[in-house]
């Protein structure tokens, strides 16, 4: 019985991790790729850790598997939030097919952040920089 649960959790986790990797390779945009990586990959690896804890069946290893899950659950949202914010502030914009740009609506003209740079204005400022 425990063997069956272990095999099921292993296959479930592998399915989610492979889905995350395919999304990482195929999605058109940094933010959609981050969506695939942070949600699906975390669930897959947590499932693999649960299989580990059930397979060995001792409290020592179960606590270590629980620690892996806990660290992933703590760090995945924080890490993807920080990475998405840094990417947006360093000038990466969402894909043209995106429906809404909530952070851009909040940041434009506030807190000293410039509005989203167009291609033309960026090229102009790049031309003007050597003169000044």
């Amino acid at each position: 019985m425990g063997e069956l649960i272990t095999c099921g959790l292993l296959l479930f986790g592998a399915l989610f991790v492979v889905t995350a990797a395919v999304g990482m390779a195929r999605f058109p945009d940094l933010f959609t790729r981050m969506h695939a990586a942070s949600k699906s990959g975390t669930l897959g690896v947590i499932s693999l850790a649960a299989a580990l804890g059930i397979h060995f069946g001792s409290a020592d290893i179960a606590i270590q598997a629980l620690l892996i899950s806990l660290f992933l659950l703590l760090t995945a949202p924080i890490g993807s939030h920080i990475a998405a914010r840094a990417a947006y502030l360093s000038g990466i914009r969402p894909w043209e097919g995106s429906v809404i740009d909530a952070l851009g609506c909040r940041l434009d003209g506030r807190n000293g952040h410039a509005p989203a740079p167009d291609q033309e204005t960026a090229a102009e400022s790049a031309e003007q920089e050597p003169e000044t």
Partner: protein
Amino acid sequence: MTTAVANLVMILLGGAMLLTAFRLFRGPTFMDRVVALDLLGTIVAGFIAVYAIATNQPVFIRDAIVLAVVSFLGTVAFSYYAEKGGKP
């Protein structure tokens, strides 16, 4: 049966690592590479867990814990310097 399934899952995780490494080498911007490296660290932590099941050797589980933490620290550090400035 568990060993056979664990070996199959290790092959699948190897394919997932290859797809992520493709994005790590190809990624058009710096932040793409950072996110791909984060996912690669997470997948390797899962791979260590499956390896422990396949070989009945629970020694390497602490490596998975350390890898999860260090991967997060790397993401935070790269994002900090990407936000501070420099070329993305």
